[in-house]
């Protein structure tokens, strides 16, 4: 049976992408977008793993569930058998799992813990921490439903990955076994650190000079640079986030990492009739209308002044948004627009965002 016949083959809304890396300047709402993306993919019947790596429990807070444990936990169901499984990837358990998976060294992990080596790896040597975190995401991406591993590419490959072939992993060469997850969404560190976070494999490969971590780092790097990966950039339509998005796009392109969507988040909407920047003189007309609707005269004038000022501010903001949108469009990637939800974002709002994002996936 050919590999693609056995692979789950719903139409792929993201062009064969299996690993979605979501990053953006701090404060742009990348966790929200990553979660909405996972929900959108699950809404199309996919089994999605949503990974968080920064220990902030942002996913749990958005989905209004208890803090996520460092193991895969189902958090949402989508239509047609789709589901979202969340995982708070955490360096300590990543290291222990890594030892156990590759070396059958669960007890050695305990020994490392005892002498403080885990502290060293997770706190003092940040580069190592990053490769462990990315490595764990990589492992989840290339896992098949039967627990064996492939390269993690767009199709379950027939051959076990040579360098991923851990001693005694026993992956059958049968191939054609579906991936455990159709898609993996990674809520990654912010753009300021994304290059180091994803590129650290190269740095470490150079440092470690052929050690086993270097071997895994090379496999991770291959997956990250393959068409199975897309790095999505979340931005606001404001000066600094746009500037940082443009810089990140260049940095990622230089590193050979495939860019996915650019997501303009929290975009203010047009309010028909409200935003007119040349309308300062119409406060009197607005006041008259308000007075006609029952506000008393003096109050109507004051309220009208305030309303007109708010309208002018919105007009300025909208003009800025249009300018910034053009800059983002200039990156040559599709720009998905997510609206600013009035009030605070709740669960219903999150699902609404997921729908909006789903509509805009290529």
């Amino acid at each position: 049976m050919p590999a693609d016949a056995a692979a789950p083959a719903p139409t792929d809304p993201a062009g064969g992408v299996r690993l979605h890396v979501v990053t953006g300047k701090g404060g742009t709402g990348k966790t929200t977008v990553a979660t909405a993306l996972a929900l959108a993919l699950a809404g199309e019947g996919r089994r999605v793993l949503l990974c968080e790596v920064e220990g902030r429990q942002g996913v749990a807070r958005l989905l209004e569930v208890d803090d996520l444990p460092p193991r895969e936990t189902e958090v949402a169901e989508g239509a047609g058998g789709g589901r979202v499984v969340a995982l708070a990837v955490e360096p300590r358990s990543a290291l222990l799992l890594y030892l156990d998976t590759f070396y059958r060294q669960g007890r050695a992990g305990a020994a490392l813990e005892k002498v403080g080596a885990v502290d060293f790896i997770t706190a003092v040597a940040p580069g190592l921490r990053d490769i462990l975190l990315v490595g764990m995401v990589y492992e989840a991406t290339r896992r098949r439903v039967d627990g064996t591993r492939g390269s993690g590419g767009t199709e379950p490959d027939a051959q076990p990955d040579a360098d991923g072939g851990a001693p005694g992993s026993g992956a059958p060469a049968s191939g054609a076994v579906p991936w455990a997850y159709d898609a993996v969404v990674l809520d990654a560190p912010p753009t300021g650190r994304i290059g180091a976070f994803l590129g650290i494999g190269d740095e470490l490969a150079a440092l470690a000079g052929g050690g086993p971590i270097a071997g895994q780092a090379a496999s991770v790097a291959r997956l990250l640079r393959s068409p199975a990966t897309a790095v999505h950039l979340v931005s606001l339509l404001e000066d600094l986030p746009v500037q940082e998005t443009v810089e990140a796009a260049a940095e990622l392109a230089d590193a050979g990492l495939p860019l996915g969507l650019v997501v303009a988040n929290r975009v203010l909407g047009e309010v028909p009739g409200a935003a007119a920047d040349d309308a300062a003189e119409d406060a009197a007309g607005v006041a008259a209308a308000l007075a006609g609707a029952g506000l008393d005269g003096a109050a109507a004038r004051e309220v009208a002044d305030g309303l007109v000022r708010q309208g002018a501010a919105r007009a300025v903001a909208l003009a800025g948004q249009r300018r910034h949108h053009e800059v983002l469009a200039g990156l040559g990637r599709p720009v998905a627009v997510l609206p600013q939800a009035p009030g605070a974002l709740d669960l219903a709002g999150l699902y609404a965002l997921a729908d909006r994002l789903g509509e805009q996936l290529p």
Partner: protein
Amino acid sequence: MSAPGRAPAWAVDALLDDPATRTLICCGSGGVGKTTTAAALAVRAAERGRRVVVLTVDPSRRLAQALGLADGATAEPRPVPGVDTGAGGSLHAAVLDARATLDALVDDALPPERAAQLKRNPVYGSVAGSFSGTQEYMAMERLGQLREAALSGRAPWELVVVDTPPSRSALDFIDAPARLGRFLDGRLVTLLRRPTTARAGLAAVPAAVAGRVTSSISGGVAAVMDKVLGGALVRDVQALVQGLDVVFGGFQQRALATSAALAAPGSGFVVVTAAEADALAEARFLLARLARDGLPTTALVVNRATVLAPGAARLGAEEAARLAGGLAAAGHERAAGLLRLHAELALTAAAEAAAVGRLLGDRDDVAVATAAARPGDVHDVAGLREVAADLAGA
């Protein structure tokens, strides 16, 4: 701006004018405006007569330019142009340079030859240059240095305002000294500290030696490390730990002293947040954590808040929506549109205030200051002055 809910409004000027205020630390999650807040408070303090230094972390290019930190050796505090010194104050600014700070620590602690050797270690470059982790340690070190300089009277400043790194978690900064301490006191370091060969750890370690050292401790830890990390990396790390031991030992002492000083009167943490769910949730954890550690929280700053225009504020969201309906029906499109916009803004402002209220819970000891969302980024002293005036309610 007025504080939402029951929280007292932050008396910014009283705090800045009090000569007993010596250190302000702006902390919060990434992208909430920590750097801008730190710089704005510093400008206001300076223009009210304090002699101030502000340490920024990764300022935007234009803000750096405004602070006179566009190029050259920006790690050393420099006078900020354009600040009104009429009240007798002054403002210096610097950018945190983790690499340079660590290099300087190494140069101070080791003889030149060993320092040079250490800085050539490939792992040193990775640790020093990496964006996460090292920055927190070095921010604490720089804060200690700037405070020391202020206390000695040698420096042209007496108030230190610091921005904290955009770390994985806002808590990393205050955790850094203890975490480093745990590591330095740990058995791994004891193990790695052992000289491996006569040639100062730079030569290859025979596997048998590494094996012998550890087998006596916990059954092949080094062997596992070797397997996981690769022999070359373990040797580099070992050489690094031996070299940095002295450096970090001194650093650790100062960091603990600085930490302790931060709990004393005269220091205060300013928790910065944006009026958004993610940032507010992070701020809640940070406030709880500061309280648990006995660290003084001076205020909560809510940036990018939705603030209604004066005059319009008296009109509630529901009433605005109702009026909009009637006016639209009567053909007053412009007035109806403005009212719909107002209803949206009022709803958002109320939701933000409620979120801040939930965040504070029953805490009445944290003062709140709010800064309105701005159409563009703040990139000059005039802009910083406006933000500070917003915070001060002026």
